[in-house]
């Protein structure tokens, strides 16, 4: 039985190779100075999806990404590795989104895609390091979520069995489908791009790319529909403008400081309301949040 899988992926600045000009004076990331890459843990997520596709005949893998026009590269990179299709959410109205606005927009797009069994995302992106988008998408879609996924063992009969990598060991859990799972970097690396898929899909373009690029092979897509990358603007997805983009983003960056971690010990809490409550109070007291 085939699954319908949506992989959430983000194009990020390559913060692993940071030069002097990586940050602008105002504390924001200088995206022009950093190469745009497929967020590494989203590649781990894609690999889990592709493994399910290898295992369950008829499975399809759809990529969903939000970003500027050039983020279409993410869809192409996915197609080169074995994804079936992809959607790019791109609109000025989405610009400046924090994790809340991003997960809102993504969840609206997923509602439009409608038919799916599993959503897989990377644990976090290397530009923001929040690990919030996957869980927030799950909440907004009212779906169960499993985080820190290292391996999907099986996805059969409406259930998914998963190995999670936790601080002190490995946990195997089961969840109903559909669900949202987020994958760790300790999961297997993504397979390389495949030569034949690369040659098949290298001319895949979004509508805006076709309009803006004076390139050959534009007519190809008429005979080869798989070369059309779906591009959705704010008009294509049912949304409420107040939750979008900058307006929908309560996060404000006040300052950025260099922090050197010194304390090595960690504190382990149980999931009880009391301990969480105490932690929140403690963090508010020392102005970590507030």
């Amino acid at each position, binding site marked *: 039985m085939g699954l319908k899988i949506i992989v959430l992926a983000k194009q990020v600045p390559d913060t692993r190779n940071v030069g002097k000009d990586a940050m602008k004076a105002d504390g924001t990331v200088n995206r022009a100075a950093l190469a745009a890459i497929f967020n590494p843990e989203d590649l781990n997520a894609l690999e889990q999806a592709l493994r399910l596709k290898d295992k369950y005949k008829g499975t399809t893998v759809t990529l969903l990404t939000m970003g500027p026009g050039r983020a279409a590269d993410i869809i192409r990179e996915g197609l080169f590795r074995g994804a079936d299709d992809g959607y790019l959410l791109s609109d000025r109205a989405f610009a400046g989104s924090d994790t809340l606005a991003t997960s809102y927009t993504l969840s609206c797009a997923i509602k439009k895609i409608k038919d799916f069994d599993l959503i897989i995302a990377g644990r976090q992106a290397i530009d923001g390091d929040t690990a919030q988008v996957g869980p927030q998408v799950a909440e907004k879609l009212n779906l169960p979520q499993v985080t820190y996924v290292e391996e999907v063992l099986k996805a059969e009969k409406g259930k998914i069995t998963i190995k999670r990598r936790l601080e002190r060991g490995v946990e195997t859990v089961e969840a109903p489908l559909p669900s949202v799972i987020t994958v760790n970097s300790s999961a297997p690396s993504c397979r*390389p791009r*495949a030569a*034949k898929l690369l*040659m098949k899909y290298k001319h895949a373009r979004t509508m805006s790319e076709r309009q803006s690029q004076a390139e*050959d092979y534009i007519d190809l897509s008429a005979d080869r529909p798989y070369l059309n990358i779906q591009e959705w603007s704010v008009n294509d997805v049912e949304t409420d403008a107040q939750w979008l983009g900058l307006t929908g983003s309560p996060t404000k960056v006040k300052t950025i400081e260099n922090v050197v971690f010194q304390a090595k010990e960690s504190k382990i809490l149980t999931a009880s309301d009391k301990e969480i409550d105490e932690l929140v109070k403690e963090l508010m007291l020392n102005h970590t949040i507030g």
Partner: protein
Amino acid sequence: MANFFTDNPDLLFHLQHPLMKKIVALKERNFADKDQFDYAPMDFEDAMDSYEKVLEIVGEICGDIVAPNAEGVDAEGPKIVNNEVIYAKGTQENLDALVKAGLMGITLPRKYEGLNFPIVPYIMAADIVSRADAGFVNIWGLQDCAETINEFADDDQKTRFLPRISNGETAAMDLTEPDAGSDLQAVQLKATFNEKDGKWYLNGVKRFITNGDGHVSLVLARSEAGTSDGRGLSMFIYDRSEKAVTIRRIENKMGIKGSPTCELVFKDAPAELVGDRKMGLIKYVMALMNGARLGIGAQSVGLSEAAYREAVSYAEERKQFGKSIIEFPAVYEMLATMKAKLDASRTLLYETSRYVDVYKSYMHLSEERALTKEERNDMKTYQRLADFFTPLLKGMTSEYCNQLAYDSLQIHGGSGFMKDYPIERIYRDARITTIYEGTTQLQVVAAIRGVSTAAYLNRIREFEAMPLQPELHSYRRTLIGMTEEYEKAVKQVLDVKDNEYLDFHARRLVEMAGHIIMGYLLLLDTERNENFRTSTEIYIRMGRSENKARAEFISNFTIDDLGFYKANA
């Protein structure tokens, strides 16, 4: 996050040679495949773009997976478990990545699920893989065998075996035996035809077989009982799934330790005849060997690249007497000469690959339609060039690669002698390149005909006539002077009319031709890209003095002087 293709712009430069237009046209034949295969190119630019993008995949896999695995593979090596070769863990990872990326049947036609790439990008991939791990390229590069099957096997065999290679099965070429190394005419492994079931059966021993447990093996065997020379040998395909071969042992080698070198015992092993009986050595092995020698050329260039890079990075980092050792003349001269030899090797590699590409494409074209007279002549010209350039390439680049490995280790000083730096492995891996697929001495035996028939000289004259910007004319004048000196030396040797005398000086003459040819190729590269200027300068400078020494040696050498060498040997 290294990419061994994009971090080396010289590769793209060689990929984009003007002759590629002709090669792609011959290989893609009006781009007819595009209506049948979704991955076939639309036109020349599209094809070239595909080669480049696929090489980026090769570069990424080599930088991120194959190179980091090389040390572990060298230490672990393959082993035999239940009569099966188990690769080192890293080897298997490398192979899995390249198989998943679909990089196994690179030159095979699309109808056999290959990529239908020319030889040039395939050899470039081999160059890249060799830089990452020269031992691994032996396993991956045995896809050459598929090319031989594609050339000589029947359609049924091609349909059964080639897609298996394209989809990731490995191959082997089983030629050498305990008493048949350089002299393959002495092969004894027996092939017997059983009239009852109409099948061939193989019995005997093969030794030094790279990847001997590959899925598909090409085996040279004696099919004509009672014969004792090359005319009694035929070529067979053996399929591992027959399980009729015992892997007696894996050799414990000095280098390329990840590559399993096997001793095989064939016992009533069913096999299929390839092509015609008695043509095994005379025709098919010659083709197979020429392909393999081109591969060793690529392996040598990749190793040279690795040796040079290790040397530069060490010489920049290492400080003695208050400065980086790269600042000392004794060190920078070594590095500069290494770079010149590397660039010379690489340009010869791709020049030769292009010759092979043109004539093989014609050959495959001739299976579909009769060639015009013009095309037939063109094919012959390029085949001749390929035949003479292949041994020159294999001989010169493998010797250079050893010189580079030696000098790179020397620059590392005592540290290079330790296992702490990759150069120690590179040095060991390089050593085999001048030995297998025909020693340098045997390459000279093949190449000397290029000297005596004036094939090299004619090509040199063509290089001489190629357009050149005025600033580069002085290099050409030097090369013309070297050519005159070479002609004189050749005449001196041939005039003696003695084969032993010719054999004695053969390597000197071949190397003289090699220096001139590589000098011209570098000069023509500089015409297209100024970056090759310094290598051209240094290489021609070196070649000129090397040739002078050889000319001097020959001009003071009479046939009687051979006696000293026989007495002293």
